[in-house]
């Protein structure tokens, strides 16, 4: 294991190298582009043998990755934002095929209007697609989860694709200390690829022709069962990762609790701002306020048991969303958490913030948490750390 100062994107690329990925379909989009550039560079230098298909769109990036996976090799791709939305059709197709594929999403706002900065809406918008969905909170975790993703998705009890989210720029472009496992360690953790079926002339099966209604529905239920069942497998593989790779983090649970046990108040969130939130929690703790944090690491499977257990007995829970679910009131995380604990926690409040790159740092989080502990009137608020600049309001125009 060596320690290096690298960015989240470089960490992911090294994970792909260590996982001995056979084929990757690549297409650039900010902020994940440096992942695929690094892969291309490593290939040009002969450091990896991965076949790189430089496709003409994200739809094709997922299609090429899918084809390679069906052909019997480990397959990877990365995307973000509009790219993720553009491959949406193929994301569902891959999940339906039940063939293991791994993708990293460098999260970014979705247009219109254009905005290249971080938010989670692109990622959360795929939450019903049948993929296992993990979200990193630092570059180390992005590497760890990428490696675990291959193992999890290729487990015969799972056989589902898996995507790993990572805050665009905030993690993708931050250079920081990352422990990079040795190839032998990874080889011991990650056995050669297994998949439920392979498409090749040795076995002339068909994939994906018409399934009649009941058969189709049974397949859908199978995805749901495999995805829900994956909770135990993720923990099992996480424990093995802890043991064999000995990382900085602990992967024996799906989600990560911080100072929650004796807490009266709990914050729930996902992604990089967990770091700043922990600092804010510490500051409030110093003032005698019993507050803790739950970081959602797996959006799918959604561990109802773990989350209920972590948040039971809390006086109030505040969910921070860096994404939107327009018209619902609150973001997707708020909706999920509320539906999970509304019968055991009297107050579940939500804050939507950090959209489109809005920076929410420790002092702003402190402000939000203080307000929350004092008692929020509204169920959900949209929080702006700074004044919103001028936006033109327009009166409707009658068209003749």
């Amino acid at each position, binding site marked *: 294991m060596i*320690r*290096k*100062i690298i960015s989240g994107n470089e960490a992911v690329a090294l994970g792909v190298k260590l996982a001995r990925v056979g084929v990757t379909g690549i297409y650039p989009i900010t*902020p994940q582009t440096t992942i695929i550039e690094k892969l291309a560079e490593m290939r040009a230098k002969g450091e990896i043998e991965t076949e790189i298909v430089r496709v003409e769109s994200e739809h094709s990036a997922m299609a090429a990755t899918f084809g390679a996976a069906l052909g019997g090799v480990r397959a990877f791709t990365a995307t973000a934002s509009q790219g993720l939305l553009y491959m949406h059709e193929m994301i569902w197709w891959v999940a339906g095929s039940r063939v293991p594929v791994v993708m990293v999403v460098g999260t970014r706002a979705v247009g219109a209007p254009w905005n*290249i*900065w971080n938010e989670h809406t692109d990622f959360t918008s795929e939450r019903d697609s049948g993929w296992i969905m993990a979200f990193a909170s*630092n570059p180390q975790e992005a590497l760890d989860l990428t490696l675990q993703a291959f193992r999890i998705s290729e487990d015969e009890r799972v056989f589902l694709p898996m995507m790993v989210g990572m*805050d665009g*720029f*905030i*993690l993708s*472009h*931050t*250079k*920081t*200390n990352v422990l990079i496992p040795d190839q032998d360690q990874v080889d011991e953790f990650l056995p050669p690829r297994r998949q439920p079926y392979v498409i090749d002339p040795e076995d002339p099966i068909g994939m994906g022709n018409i399934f009649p209604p009941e058969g189709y529905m049974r397949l859908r239920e199978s995805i749901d069962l495999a995805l829900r069942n994956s909770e135990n497998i993720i923990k099992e593989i996480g424990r093995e990762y802890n043991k064999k790779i000995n990382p*900085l983090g602990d992967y024996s649970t799906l989600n990560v609790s911080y100072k929650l046990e004796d807490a009266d108040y709990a914050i729930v969130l996902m992604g*990089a*701002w*967990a*770091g*700043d939130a*922990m*600092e804010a929690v510490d500051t409030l703790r110093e003032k005698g306020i019993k507050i803790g944090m739950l970081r959602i690491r797996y959006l799918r499977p959604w561990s109802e048991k773990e989350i209920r257990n972590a948040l039971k007995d809390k006086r109030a829970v505040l969910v921070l969303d860096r994404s939107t679910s327009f018209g619902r009131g609150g973001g997707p995380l708020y909706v999920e958490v509320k539906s999970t604990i509304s019968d055991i926690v009297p107050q579940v409040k939500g804050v939507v913030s950090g959209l489109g*790159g809005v*920076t*929410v*740092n*420790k*002092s702003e989080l402190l402000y939000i948490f203080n307000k929350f502990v004092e008692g929020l009137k509204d169920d959900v608020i949209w929080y702006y750390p700074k004044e919103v600049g001028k936006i033109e309001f327009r009166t409707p125009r009658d068209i003749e």
Partner: protein
Amino acid sequence: MLEIRFHGRGGQGVVTASQLLAEAAGYENLYTSSFPIYGAERRGAEIEAYCRISENPIRVTSPVEEPDYLVVIDNSLLQISRNLFRGLKDTSTIILNSPSKPDLNWRTFHVNATKIATDLGLVKSGWPMVNVIILGALIRVMGIPKLSSLEQAIEEEFGGKIAELNIKGARLAYEQVGVEYVTA
């Protein structure tokens, strides 16, 4: 934890400077993180980059708002930037690329990195490349990381002739800074 904020213009290597500092600190088994604010990446536009160095793992991911050290790579920003001094604490220190000592309300060091770069012939697309040179001054003032770690990071990043010139420049800045010392 030390928090450092770099200011400069697009094309001056502001981001590279913050990354090299992080890498140098990394060689000394310190925890570190460095990242830029992305968006206005045009050549000439004002750019910020951040670096944190700590003995413990760094959890914060947001931009440095209250820097311990402020590095100004382009001193013309003193006149035009609205963001330059934001969040500075009484205890903050400024490291400036400038031929003369400006009158500022903080502990300030300056080094004429532009002259060092020009003398060495470190010029890219018409601009003297001062970003790495000024790091020599910064680490001297901060006390960490060691000059040898910085040199290792420079070698790793550039290699060859460019690394050699940058290392020379950083050493000169390391020696020259502190000759003039300004207090508020």
